[in-house]
């Protein structure tokens, strides 16, 4: 990227820093001036907008409906009319008002219940006004440009020392960093920031931690001890990169990423409202998994989901993808009015598509102009108008009965992934055989003929295994009006046509009414300021623990100005330049040196950077709900890896659905292999999500979730301790301990089990704790064989016949401990 581009970028962003680079004698790394020097004029976006948004915009912001004194402070025009005199803070009404002692005069007024501005905030306002009160458009509404990568220079004399200190993980404040720390440009951006704060990166994590981290982050499953051994022993210089490639190519990658996407698009297997009946949508789930595994460009992924039906000659999967427009909550509650629910669905779609792709709270403009961002109420309905061709039904009461599943037309017949993949294989083989037909009758002819007949039969059989799935079928667009105060009964608002928000690029469709396909293409157009940033920011959160801009669901003016906008923008541009290549971005993020750092805190760094925003170490966090289940199944050997297909139902407390009705229903846990499949396939009952998933913060998927909270509750402890799924996993692990190796001694077995679950070796004092428990419970269960028998009878998995029951029970206790350890459910 040329200087000129970057310069223009800078100019538009105002006083964030005037020089591209600061070179200092003896300073090793020199970077973009991301550090706004204290003496700089405050930046509107970074310093001033948050103050105004928090304290003033409710009455003096974009919403014309609640504006007081005809004053708006969110635009330069409005503010400088009389409230702000650029260059003269003391002559500005704003300063007079926020500093006044008179409660009648002071802003914000008491009735707003907002606290007065702090002296620091007032000082910032003063400085900003005195420096010219320069307004800037919100950073995220300016399309990103590729900033130059900070250059890294190393004073040769310092490098060796730094390297040594790195290896020992010592304090690095004020020290230099080695030239070879940065592995890619992410590192250069991060290192530049660290150095500007006088700190350095953390040492690389040990290999066992690294492989476990990578496994969970990329495929959501733990590595086996054999896989760990292989990686630890792999001395090739690119061993790590090889591992990354292997994981990115694993089908489990798509399963892991699908969970991320499902939270955003609020994918669930029930309708959500009232009777919360099952709905038919499984092929859409498989589409998402397949798309991630195929590394479908995110742009195409976007277009297919929003508007696959509008593509020329759409494929089955492209139609299945439009299930996106249908997975919102719906109802056929008696008494629901069509017009009301059409309004509710439209609003839901606007909320979800804007949150998912733009991290925009456009939903706030349903009843009035947005209070903080420049979305007008009219624009909310203009965006809704893009979806005016989706609904044939408001309430589905005329079609959807109280059956399980219920009907939600339009639906189409489609194949799930396992059927589809098998068909692909069969087709390929048939083609091979057909090619071979052109030839001589040889000895194998009869064999080939038999195979062909067999395959064609199988093909027919597979074809018949389609299932219904909800899709979008465009109808004549309904008339969309602005609903005053969001009231669906008020028909006095003006009719609106589909158009994008005024402050962003407008579509040019000539006389043709703009449609969902236009909207989708607009989202992934090169000059869209948000989509690419939003996606890379959310990916960053997966791999680094906290977003570059922390508020993942809101990149508007009430979100967080990114800590490292250059990096965020660089990633966004890289994403678009790569053709919206998801695996490319993930690969970049996980092969950096920054990603490979240890997550163990360094007190001196944490003091300086308590939220780890500089990424001078890795983050560590509890695993997601799905990973906790999958991990227990995996380490105990129960996990059944099968891609796509049926919905599965883990054991669940009896009568958990007793508060559901229309119809009342019993829950039947899956039998056989389906009991042990990954959580991404679990039946997602919106009104009563499986308690184990709920306890570990899985969302009900009624609305978009961009950032799951992480709670620590006694309910979660009870799940891990007592949920039969986890007890059964403990029992299976115990059986594995007793059968899967040829060790005879307790101590060896404890060490073996420890590695099975935690990946690392047990310390001797750790093993001693388990040994103590083992011996105690072995004695107890020997004295109480009935109890032992009861414990090892939990679950449907067969227990090996020739095992001593009391021994198995005692080892089950040990295994329960292992599955409950904090470390077991933590990604370090």
């Amino acid at each position: 990227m040329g200087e000129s581009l970057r310069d223009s970028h800078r100019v538009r962003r105002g006083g964030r820093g005037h020089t591209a680079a600061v070179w200092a004698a003896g300073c090793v790394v020199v970077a973009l001036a991301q550090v706004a020097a204290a003496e700089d004029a405050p930046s509107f976006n970074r310093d001033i907008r948050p103050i105004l948004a928090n304290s003033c915009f409710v009455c003096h912001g974009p919403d014309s409906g609640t504006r007081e004194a005809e004053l708006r402070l969110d635009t330069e025009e409005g503010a400088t009319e009389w409230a702000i005199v650029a260059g003269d803070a003391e002559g500005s009404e704003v300063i007079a008002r926020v500093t006044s002692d008179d409660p009648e005069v002071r802003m914000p007024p008491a009735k707003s219940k907002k606290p007065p501005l702090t002296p620091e905030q007032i000082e910032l306002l003063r400085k900003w006004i005195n420096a010219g009160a320069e307004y800037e458009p919100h950073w995220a509404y300016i399309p990103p440009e590729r900033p130059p990568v900070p250059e890294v220079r190393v004073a040769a004399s310092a490098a060796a020392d730094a390297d040594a200190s790195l290896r020992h993980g010592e304090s690095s404040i004020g020290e230099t960093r080695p030239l070879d720390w940065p592995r890619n440009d992410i590192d250069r951006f991060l290192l530049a920031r660290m150095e500007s704060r006088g700190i350095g990166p953390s040492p690389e994590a040990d290999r066992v931690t690294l492989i476990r981290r990578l496994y969970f982050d990329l495929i959501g499953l733990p590595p086996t001890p054999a896989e760990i051994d292989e990686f630890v022993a792999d001395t090739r210089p690119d061993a790590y990169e090889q591992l990354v490639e292997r994981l990115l190519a694993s089908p489990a990658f798509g399963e892991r990423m699908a969970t991320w996407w499902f939270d955003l698009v609020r994918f669930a297997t029930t309708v959500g409202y009232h009777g919360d009946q099952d709905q038919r949508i499984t092929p859409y789930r498989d589409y998402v998994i397949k798309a991630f595994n195929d590394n479908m460009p995110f742009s195409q992924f976007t277009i297919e989901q929003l508007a696959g039906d509008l593509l020329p000659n759409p494929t089955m999967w492209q139609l299945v993808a439009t299930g996106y427009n249908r997975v919102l909550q719906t109802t056929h509650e008696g008494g629901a009015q069509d017009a009301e629910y059409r309004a509710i669905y439209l609003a839901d779609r606007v909320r979800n598509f804007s949150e998912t792709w733009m991290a925009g709270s456009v939903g706030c403009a349903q009843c009035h102009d947005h209070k903080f961002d420049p979305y007008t109420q009219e624009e909310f309905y203009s965006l809704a108008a893009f979806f005016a061709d989706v609904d044939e039904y408001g309430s589905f009461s005329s079609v959807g009965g109280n059956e399980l599943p219920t009907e939600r037309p339009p639906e189409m017949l489609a194949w799930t992934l396992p059927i589809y993949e098998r068909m692909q294989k069969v087709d390929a083989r048939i083609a091979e055989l057909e090619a071979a037909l052109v030839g001589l009758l040889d000895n194998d002819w009869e064999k080939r003929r038999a195979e062909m007949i067999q395959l064609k039969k199988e093909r027919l059989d597979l074809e018949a295994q389609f299932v219904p799935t909800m899709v979008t079928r465009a109808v004549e667009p309904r008339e969309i009006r602005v609903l005053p105060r969001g009231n669906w009964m008020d028909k006095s608002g003006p009719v609106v046509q589909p158009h994008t928000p005024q402050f962003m690029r407008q579509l040019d469709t000539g006389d043709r009414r703009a449609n969902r396909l236009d909207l989708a293409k607009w989202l992934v157009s090169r000059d869209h300021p948000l989509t690419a940033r939003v996606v890379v920011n959310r990916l960053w959160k997966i791999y680094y623990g906290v977003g570059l801009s922390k508020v993942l669901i809101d990149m508007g003016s009430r979100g967080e100005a990114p800590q490292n906008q250059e990096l965020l923008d660089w990633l966004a541009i890289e994403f678009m330049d790569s053709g919206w290549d998801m695996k490319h971005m993930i690969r970049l993020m996980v092969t950096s040196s920054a990603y490979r750092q240890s997550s163990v805190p360094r007190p001196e760094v944490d003091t300086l950077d308590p939220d780890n925003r500089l990424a001078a170490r890795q983050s560590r966090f509890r695993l997601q709900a799905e990973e906790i289940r999958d991990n227990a199944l995996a380490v105990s050997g129960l996990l059944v890896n099968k891609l796509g297909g049926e919905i599965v139902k883990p054991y669940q407390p009896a009568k958990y659905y007793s508060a559901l009705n229309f119809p009342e229903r019993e829950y039947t846990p899956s039998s056989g292999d389906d009991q042990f499949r990954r959580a991404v396939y679990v039946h997602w009952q919106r009104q009563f999500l499986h308690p184990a998933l709920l306890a570990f913060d899985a969302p009900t998927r009624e609305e978009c979730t961009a950032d799951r909270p992480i709670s620590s509750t006694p309910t979660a402890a009870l799940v891990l301790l007592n949920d039969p799924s986890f007890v059964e996993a403990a029992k299976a692990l115990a059986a594995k301990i007793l059968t899967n190796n040829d060790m005879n001694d307790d101590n060896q077995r404890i060490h073996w089990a420890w590695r099975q679950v935690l990946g690392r070796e047990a310390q001797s004092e750790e093993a001693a704790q388990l040994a103590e428990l083992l011996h105690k419970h072995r004695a107890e269960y020997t004295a109480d064989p009935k109890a032992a028998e009861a414990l090892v009878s939990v679950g449907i998995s067969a227990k090996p016949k020739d095992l001593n029951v009391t021994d198995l029970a005692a080892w089950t206790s040990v295994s329960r401990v292992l599955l409950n350890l904090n470390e077991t459910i933590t990604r370090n």
Partner: protein
Amino acid sequence: MLNFEFQRELIARRSFLGRASLGIGSMALAGLLEPRVLAAAAGAKSGGGYAGVVNPRHFAPKAKRVIFLCMAGGPSQLELFDEKPKLSAMNGQPVPESVTKGQPIAQLQSQKELLCFGSQSTFGHFGHSGQVISNYLPHIGGIADDICIVRSMQTEQINHDPAHTFMNTGTAISGRPSMGAWVNYGLGTDCADLPGFVVLTSRAGTRSPQPVSSRQWHSGFLPGKFQGVPLHSTGDPVHYVGNPPGVDRRRQQDVISTVNKLNRMRDAVEHNPEIATRIAQYELAFRMQMSVPELVNIADEPQHVLDSYGVTGADGSYAYNCLLARRLAERGVRFIHLYHRDWDFHDGLRQHIVDLCQSADQPTAALIKDLKQRGMLDDTLVIWGGEFGRTPMAQGDVTQAKAGRDHHIRGFTMWLAGGGIKRGMSYGATDDLGYHAVENVVHVNDLHATMLYLLGIDHERLTYRYQGRDFRLTDVAGKVVRDILA
């Protein structure tokens, strides 16, 4: 147990004091997850108990806890509390169009005629206060002097699911915290061994009940620990509170203490504040495994108490749940929410109202009396009502016993008692046909504002920032109904 208490003490000291040097950063990292919560917890009593973000309270509190008796489905105010002679006089005649024009309707949208449907019950004057209450509710009549009847309630949602969501969260959009979660977020809980927000559901069994979604007690964007915990009458009273088969309490304790010991060892290497929290949660879980069975074991209740509620066993009935509500209140649980699920009367109102009154009248009154007798009514706010009321118009043939009433949101009745509420009072009124609340209208947002006020919370200051906006239980509305405050 001693062992656990000791460990808890140790952890408390370590995590809040002993870590000062390393602590700032690590604490802040944890704070990243629940910033306000942690900040509040750190400032709260030692030991890490959560004392709420409204600490100190905005106002002197009148109530310490809330018992919300939700009559799910929408009880008919016209049979129970809102006597309308004119409606009875006009029985079978069309409702004037001026009354219904432009109003939302639910199932009646498919009905040709909207006819007046007079009350299917009779009313009496009860107590010294002479409050007008249905003769189907003699027991509630017996507590007439303790309750404040609000006949001018209004809500905004006309179908069950969104109306419940509105009643619980102040909006019909999913994903917002329920009031029990808000209250626990604001005040924390006084009970160390039980969740601060407990939910109980029951059904009369006389008709198809209302579904009630767990959304109604979800914590929305608030931290998960404020979520309501359902208490069940079959299986484990709280999910997974029972030990696995073959594991008795001692063996369970062995497992938990080994887990905690190993976690502590690891903490020495990792310096992870999450570990201290995890250890504390395992201890709490273990205590819950004791306290929950003790809570639901009603063997210690004298027969006359059981009789007063009409409890015949741990059967999950409304009567049983009312008794448990008192036991929960005694143990310091902050928000106790009951759902009795059968109050939807689209048809057969004449019989169903009798059935429902029979199942709900006595236990409700017994709860109020029991609380009063124990001196707990003064600091317990009890709220009774549905997600909306019923139409003055008949659904179905007005002349037949199978006639019913549709959902109604423009005027319905709820009542409150205890915790700073005036006693023996009637408040607000609907028009002559019982359609519109016309006097002293109380919106659901106002009910929320009043409830929070009584708990010592300014509803405009109990906020949580999500998606860049400071959300409130009362959204952008709500005023405290001062007229009904004692």
